[in-house]
């Protein structure tokens, strides 16, 4: 369920789009924070001034900047707007990362550790003391006391206390990050390590303050449409369970935004399936022992950065997004293409594969809401090429495997398919992948989806 900080982010998107459509964005940008948090109004944080500061950085990210780029704190949003509106292409996120930490919004959660709460009764059985493998717990003044020079944060004591008096505090972003890319610098500021970040977006969706920001390309898309360029929207199949109304109504709504054409990314998934099945067959017949999927960009980043020895087993078949873009460009020569999905890592894959823009579902809905377009009030659009359900199934875990299995049904059984899947990337996934690379685990077709359940649970999905 979405929380307060998510609604602030969405309300800002809607205001942003409304002002863009009115032609007043440049002057309105510096007013939003005050309008949303007036002097005598309520604040979500300690005071309205803190709220206003965070709103400023959210608007910077909507303009496509990372708050870490700020060198002059006094610089107005109007000035950032002028820079953004002049740029020919958005910042290339493949050369950086699409995420940044908003320091003003970050609560600076204390590092994860085990603490004894006042619920401790100093009981005589002392299971905490006896279960501690490091002898870090003693009873001082009838209360369980932890010696942090010995404690290794294993959490055993938290599970044995009959009063639930010992708890492990967490840092949600650090806990959610599967690669250890988030840490605190010596000054206590949360940082994302570019070398380790795979842009999975877990921190983005798990931070209870929504203090992780995405560089948006919404302004770039709206500008291209306004300038009369041909822009084609490609919508990922994961959107279906996310909206009020049907896909067909959504397509009408999106075309009202001024896109030249709207298509399903699943159209590309049909081609991906056919090619991936063909590639798999060829590889198996050539005696290779493993092929693993390429459609989840966060997984591919994980392999690239942490298990490079597995790279040669990653399928070379382009992802549905890339193939959908080929179709769009064929049908609308000279067009710009926008991928719309629930994914942060697609921003990187898009930048690497000549996709002009990437938007999140949230940003697309923000554009619709800000333009006063109601999905459920729209007539359903007749889809010129509705994708088959196997292709739409790419958005769910094991969907890729299912599509490829169905496709392989057309081939003669010259080899046996042994499909395995990893449903959600966790901290331990890297070591499992190393075992696959070393040939120590069974299976010749490995599907990996970064998000548990697949793209439908992506970090930018609206149901979160």
């Amino acid at each position, binding site marked *: 369920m979405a929380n307060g900080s998510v609604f602030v982010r969405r309300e800002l998107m809607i*205001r942003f789009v409304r002002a863009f459509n009115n032609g007043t964005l440049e002057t309105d940008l510096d007013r939003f924070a005050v309008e949303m948090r007036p002097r005598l109004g309520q604040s979500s944080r300690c005071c309205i001034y803190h709220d206003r500061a965070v709103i400023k950085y959210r608007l910077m990210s909507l303009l496509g900047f990372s708050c870490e780029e700020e060198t002059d704190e006094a610089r107005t949003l109007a000035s950032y707007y002028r820079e953004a509106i002049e740029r020919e292409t958005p910042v290339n996120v493949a050369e950086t990362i699409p995420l940044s930490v908003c320091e003003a919004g970050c609560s600076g959660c204390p590092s994860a550790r085990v603490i004894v709460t006042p619920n401790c009764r100093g009981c005589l059985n002392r299971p905490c003391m006896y279960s501690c493998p490091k002898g870090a717990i003693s009873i001082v003044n009838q209360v369980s006391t932890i010696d942090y020079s010995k404690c290794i944060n294993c959490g055993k004591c938290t599970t044995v206390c009959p009063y639930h008096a010992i708890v492990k505090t967490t840092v949600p972003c650090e806990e959610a990050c599967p690669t250890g890319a988030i840490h605190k610098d010596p000054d206590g500021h949360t940082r994302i390590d570019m070398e380790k970040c795979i842009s999975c977006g877990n921190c983005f969706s798990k931070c209870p303050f929504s203090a992780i920001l995405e560089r948006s390309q919404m302004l770039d898309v709206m500008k291209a449409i306004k300038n009369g360029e041909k822009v084609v929207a490609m919508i990922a199949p994961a959107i279906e369970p996310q*909206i*009020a109304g049907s896909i067909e109504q959504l397509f009408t709504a999106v075309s009202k935004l001024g896109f030249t054409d709207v298509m399903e990314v699943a159209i590309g998934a049909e081609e991906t399936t056919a090619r991936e099945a063909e590639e798999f067959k060829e590889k198996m017949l050539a005696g290779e022992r493993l092929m693993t999927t390429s459609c989840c960009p966060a997984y591919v980043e994980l392999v690239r950065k942490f298990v490079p020895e597995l790279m040669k087993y990653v399928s070379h078949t382009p992802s549905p997004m890339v193939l959908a873009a080929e179709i769009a460009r064929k049908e609308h020569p000279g067009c710009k293409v926008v991928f719309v999905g629930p994914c942060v890592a697609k921003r990187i894959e898009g930048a690497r594969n000549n996709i002009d823009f990437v938007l999140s579902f949230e940003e697309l*809905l923000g554009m619709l*809401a800000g333009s*006063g377009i*109601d999905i*459920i009030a729209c007539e359903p659009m007749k889809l010129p090429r509705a994708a088959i359900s196997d292709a739409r199934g790419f958005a769910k875990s094991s969907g890729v495997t299912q599509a490829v299995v169905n496709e392989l049904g057309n081939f003669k059984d010259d080899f046996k398919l042994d499909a395995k899947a990893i449903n959600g990337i966790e901290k331990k996934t890297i070591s499992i992948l190393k075992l696959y690379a070393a040939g120590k685990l069974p299976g010749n077709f490995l599907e990996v989806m970064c998000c548990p359940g697949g793209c439908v649970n992506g970090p930018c999905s*609206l149901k979160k």
Partner: protein
Amino acid sequence: MKKMTLEICSGTTCYMLGANNLLNIENEMPSELRGLAEVRALPCMGLCNDKELSGAPYVKLNGKVIEKATPEKIYDAMRALIEE
């Protein structure tokens, strides 16, 4: 007692700002309230323009507008109606 009408704005703005969590409210109501209201999802009711954006999501209970609607606010309003 006459059935109440609970209209949930499902315009894109309200949907984004929380109405998506209200659409299933009929099945999530506390047992004493279940079945007492007819729940309908409506297109944009036009309540969210300019200044009033911060009041989304909007719902109407027997025609009376509830701003920043949450399940709890709706239940309270329903209970108040029952007591009337």
